[in-house]
């Protein structure tokens, strides 16, 4: 569990550099006109936005984790162990490989977000445009959960792989943690990434995803995976195996 959390954190930190670029516009939108308001309200805006994001991600994680639990249960009935983790892992590895191929020039069919979701996003933003800045920031933060961001959804799938709502929410919280430094930097107007690294960013992200996926498949995913379990042959871990 720790291992997966750390892997997720690293991958998130790595990929957050792209988050700055894509969602930077949102940051500007909710931060509004900087000359008009003071530092405190700007900080409140940033805080609300990021908290909104946390809520959205954690919610998605919980949902996905619950889904994963359901998958696990079903799989258990069919005699498959840790179905959610394996499925999630495989999906993510495939995603990472696809991203790698795209960056090398191979054209793959793309899935666009369903228009209903886009409409929801649009209406949501319109509704809050006129609200006070903190509310606006919070709402935008919540809405970013609906963005068709492949990177985000890869992690949601990882959360599903944990097989429990609580673990899924926790995993998404870790992902959120990794994005905070960069989003705050963009909010404060700092330049984020130096040129040579940017060139390798897509490849690095794809590789990171593949690693996460492999971790998931390899079974480092269960929430209560005691490292000593492998050595414990008479304890709790062994009762699933019926004596033959």
């Amino acid at each position, binding site marked *: 569990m720790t*291992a997966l959390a750390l892997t997720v954190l690293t991958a998130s930190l790595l990929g957050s550099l792209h988050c700055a670029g*894509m969602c930077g*516009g949102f940051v*500007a939108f909710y931060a509004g006109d900087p000359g008009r308001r003071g530092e405190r309200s700007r900080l409140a805006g940033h805080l609300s936005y990021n908290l909104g994001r946390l809520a959205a991600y954690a919610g998605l994680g919980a949902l996905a984790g619950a889904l994963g639990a359901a998958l696990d249960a079903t799989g258990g009935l069919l005699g498959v162990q840790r179905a959610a983790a394996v499925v999630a892992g495989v999906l993510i590895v495939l995603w990472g490989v696809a991203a790698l191929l795209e960056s090398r020039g191979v054209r*793959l069919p793309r899935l666009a977000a369903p228009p209903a979701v886009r409409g929801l996003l649009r209406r949501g933003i319109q509704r809050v445009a006129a609200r006070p800045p903190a509310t606006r920031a919070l709402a935008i933060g919540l809405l970013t959960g609906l963005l068709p961001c492949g990177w985000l959804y890869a992690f949601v799938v990882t959360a599903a792989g944990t097989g429990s709502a609580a673990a899924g929410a926790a995993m998404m919280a870790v992902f959120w943690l990794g994005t905070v430094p960069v989003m705050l930097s963009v909010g404060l107007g700092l330049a984020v990434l*130096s040129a040579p690294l940017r060139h390798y960013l897509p490849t690095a992200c794809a590789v990171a995803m593949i690693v996460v996926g492999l971790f998931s498949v390899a079974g480092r995913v269960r929430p209560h995976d005691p490292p000593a379990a492998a050595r414990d042959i008479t304890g709790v871990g062994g009762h699933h195996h019926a004596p033959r």
Partner: protein
Amino acid sequence: MLLAEEVGARVTAAACAQCGLPVPAGLLEAGAPRQFCCAGCRAVHALMDEHGRAHEHGLDRQRAARSSWAPARPGDRRYAELDDPGFQARTCRRGPDGLLATELYLEGVHCSACVWLVEKLPGLLPGVVEARLDLSRSQVLVRWDPGVVRLSAVARQLRALGYAPHPRRGMRAEEVRRREDRVALARVGLAGAVAGNVMAIAFALYGGMLNGMEPEFAAFFRWASLLLALPSVIWGGGVFFRGAWTALRLRALSMDLPISLGLLAGFLHGAVNTVRGTGEVYFDSVTALIFLLLFGRYLLRRQQRAAGDAAELAASLYPSSARLLEDGQAREVPLEALVPGALVEVRAGELVPADGVIVAGQSTVDASLLSGEPVPVAVAAGDRVHAGTLNVASRLELRVERTGEDTRVGRLMTLVEAHARRRAPIVQLADRISGRFVAAVLVLAAATLLLWVRVDPARALDHAVALLIVTCPCALGLATPLAMSAAIGRAARGGFLVKGGDVLEKLTRPGRMWLDKTGTLTEGRARLVRWCGDVSARPLVAAAEAHSSHPLALAFLEALSGEPRSRDMVEIIETHGGGIEARVGERSVIVGSPAFVESRAKEVVSGLATEVDVLVGAGLTPVLVAVDGRVVAAAGFGDPVRGDAGAALARVRGLGWRLGILSGDHARVVAAVGAGLGLEPAMCRGGVSPEGKLDVVAAALAQGPVVMVGDGVNDAAALAAATVGIAVHGGAEAALAAADVFVMRPGVTRIAELLDGSRRTMRVVRRNLAFSLGYNVIGVGLAMSGALNPLVAAILMPLSSLTVIISSYRARTFRTAKDGEAPTCR
């Protein structure tokens, strides 16, 4: 801050319209107006489109943030604007051989390996004749043939080497420099924060090793320190990796290579052990090393800039702020804010901040810095004054014409710096050794590894890493030129403008020194030395000479200024180059050369007949005074030898120099002066023309080093020809154009001080080299014998280079104002 050149650069089709990152090749859509790197960016872009104001604002902020990033790929930047004829007309100089020369500011320059690399440019790009990099200011002087290669190609090649070029002039270079500083500081800060945290975790781990710790906690701590160390190694250590890689690409060994290897080995070793769950981890050493190295480098950059900056050199010569007059109100502004046409106020006792024309007020200005004239000159509305001169008497209002580097003083400093890039022989030696040193270190590290693998495999890598980390050729590569440039900076503040480190080195090898007489060894002015005859004639002479501007008249007046002057009416009958005839009251007074007076006077007082010969024999210019037709007095005028000349020349001789005088003055006068100073008669040559002086110097060059000390204007040829030419007189530009050193303050003692300062500088350089060698030998010994732990090595190495750096900068090579002697006593 928007950098105009980047806003102008085309964003190519390969960058995502929303986030600016490169679009994966597989997602490019031919013919689409906008490309996106992912569905998310496309969606966000569409959304923001529907919210016009927010969109513009957001994109503007992004664009501003993005424009301070360099473009995604080296190939994106074409530098086409450098080929613009207007730009080239402003910033490039055409040499006599048809080559163009210009200066560019380079980003990312940090060590002498970079110098080596950039100076290889002529070999990499045909058409480039010369590339010289000034490490302290990160500026490269490039000379190229415009018919063979364009400036934009040169810029692209520099970019490909890893140094982004920018035009040198103006605020842009400042901005880039400030941005680089900010990034460097951020890197140091991150490295420091990471190092602190990793060390805290390491304490816990060490404690755990002693008292026992559950494996889960140990694993957690190790993973945590691994992850913390990761950004430090990637971003902080990346500086060294890039440097090593760049040098390797050009098949050179740079100092970054052992450091990079040590860091990588230490980090990967620890990472592997962390994943495996057993073995030692040394993240604390690695992160501590990165922090200390980055910090040292940061300090180094700042110090280098402080020592060698043109602005800094000139800042010791003119003020850093000025009082701008707007609508009658005075406001303090920094010097860079002055533009031509602005009105500034200069109060009495202040230095003039810029070249300009006086619009109001009248005062006297001490322009000795530029003209060499120690006497203040009266100025009033309509007169021009120059930056760096001192406004003595009263407040002036000035309309600015030229500021900063365009002023006379600024151009002077540019000249000094351009030559400061000449590399002293000892520095060139150090560069050559650097490469071999690195090779030796690598071999020794490999040897250590092989030796220890047999004895104690677990520790073998640690010892090799410790060896890689502890060795530091910094003194060779860095601190030697630093000691030179620090000394040159101090020399400038002490009143010596030195045109290069090699000058200081040459001044430590004694040979023959030829000095000019008038103005150098003597005060350069006529003074009344002897008066022989009737003293009562003196007031009459004073009255008669009162309105003449002949040098001898002025000398008379100066000498007789303390005495009462005759109050009678003065009527000038005749003035002439040879003398003056006047009627003072009822008496006729004739003052002039012997020929002039004898043709008008009738008789000579006894005892004075031979006086003229006596005066000439003593090397003085004779002047006779006749009152009412009778010669009553004879006066002798001489150019007195400076009071400190004797002692100073004795000091110089004590250092091993053979001294001589070369002068255009009369041979007997020169012989007399030489005898008075204890010089060999054969070495005191009078009646020598400027061409003659050049011949003497050229002939003496065949026998060893020759130093010529003289007037920048009259002795220019000889000064330029000598091994080292020291100009002590004659105005700054002319002096520096020909000579290697310009001494701004009068006095022969200055020459002795210059030689002492050179010797002290070379002593510092040798001390640095010895320390570096000794430290490395001991360090290698300890590491190979297994006594060194990478953490200790990580602390020792930056300490050693900091020691060398501090010793270079704190060394009191030349005395400056801060050391208790005012450099501009007038």
